[in-house]
């Protein structure tokens, strides 16, 4: 039952016109635009790389998040899913997992390439990739709460980032900070803080998102 939902969501995201490829393309396009804006000073690019790539990754993930529940809500699928043997909390958790597998994971896998293009040294590329692998589940999880809260709003896609971005500040700070500290040769607890944030966010969000789905279904 869980597998059915997981595979369906992954299939919807990866089929032609799905959100996975779009998010990945958005991520790469934003990252490409930055050097065009700030110039090709490799030293400067290296300093801003982690911040730029983290912000671009968060935005790319949010881009596909607004439809996480809304698409199923609008076409009636969510009613039918709600009446399945799965609890709404489980449904939320499965959807978060599917979102991360089709967005967070591909973004993480693409990030070393972009890191190299921004002139990051190998160790820093490693830390960047590790930080995205650790932090993007938190982005999917937090974003899912926002997606569940806004699913009945027609222009929910515009409100979602406002709700979620401030809450994701710790992920960006620790994620990009870990790379920055690595560049400066400092040892920092950033990756540990990031991991703690991601674990707590991932554990809590199915409950918050499930509650939000329940109240929107009653609407």
């Amino acid at each position, binding site marked *: *039952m869980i597998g*059915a939902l997981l595979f369906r969501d992954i*299939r*919807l995201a990866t089929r032609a016109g*799905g959100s996975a490829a779009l998010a990945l393309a958005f991520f790469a396009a934003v990252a490409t635009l930055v050097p065009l804006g700030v110039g090709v000073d490799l030293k400067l690019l290296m300093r801003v790389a982690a911040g730029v790539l983290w912000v671009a990754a968060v935005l790319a993930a949010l881009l596909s998040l607004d439809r996480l529940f809304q698409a199923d809500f609008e076409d*009636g699928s969510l009613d039918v899913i709600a009446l399945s043997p799965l*609890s709404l909390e489980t449904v939320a958790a499965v959807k978060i997992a599917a979102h991360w597998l089709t967005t967070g994971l591909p973004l993480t896998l693409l990030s070393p390439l972009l890191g190299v293009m921004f002139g990051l040294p190998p160790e820093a590329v490693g830390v960047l990739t590790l930080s995205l692998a650790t932090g993007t589940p938190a982005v999917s999880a937090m974003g899912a709460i926002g997606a569940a809260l806004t699913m009945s709003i027609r222009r929910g896609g515009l409100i979602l980032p406002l709700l979620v971005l401030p809450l994701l500040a710790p992920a960006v700070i620790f994620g990009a900070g870990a790379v920055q500290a690595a560049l400066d040769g400092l040892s920092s607890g950033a990756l540990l803080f990031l991991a703690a944030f991601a674990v707590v966010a991932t554990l809590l969000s199915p409950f918050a998102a499930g509650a939000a789905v329940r109240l929107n279904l009653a609407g």
Partner: protein
Amino acid sequence: MTTVQYLDIQKLTCIRGQRVLFRDLSFRVDGGQVLSLEGPNGAGKTSLLRVLAGLLPAAGGTVALVSGRGAETDADERGRRVAWLGHNDAAKPQLTPREVLMFFARLYGTRADIDAVLASVGLAKIANLACGYLSAGQKKRLALARLKVAERPVWLLDEPLSSLDADGRKRALDLVNGHVMFGGIVIAATHEPLGVASERLTLGAAA
């Protein structure tokens, strides 16, 4: 599919916003019975169906699903015994009818014969065509097929005949008749006569 003896509704009250849709509504539907809900737009037919499904909490009253195992009043548990056909057909434009039905069968944990069900609603030929290309009537047929796949004792249907052609209606009524013949319960909100032997419940426009 476990059978249900009857559905017992006592003093059900539903308030939307600041409007009372219905108050102290009591009725009973036996297994093998079809109940058609009638009434003008805004009378609360859809809300009543959502309350019965456990999707919408009632402002008061109880809904009990009585079977050999006793009376079940918990909304979430009741939801596990209900098959739902709403205004929207839950047909994903990117997926084919077969994929949609396979998904719901696996999600609900049933072993329905998908091909047979597709044939029974007349969708066998376009079973592998993405739902985005289907007409409104064809999507409604898919939604009807989903009821069969769910293998649940209580069917809650919101306007099951809308956008169906003559052949589609006949197949829909066959499905409904087949369901109640084996002791199932069907509650359908309709604007027009359902065309099967049924009890009627008319919801008035709220004062």
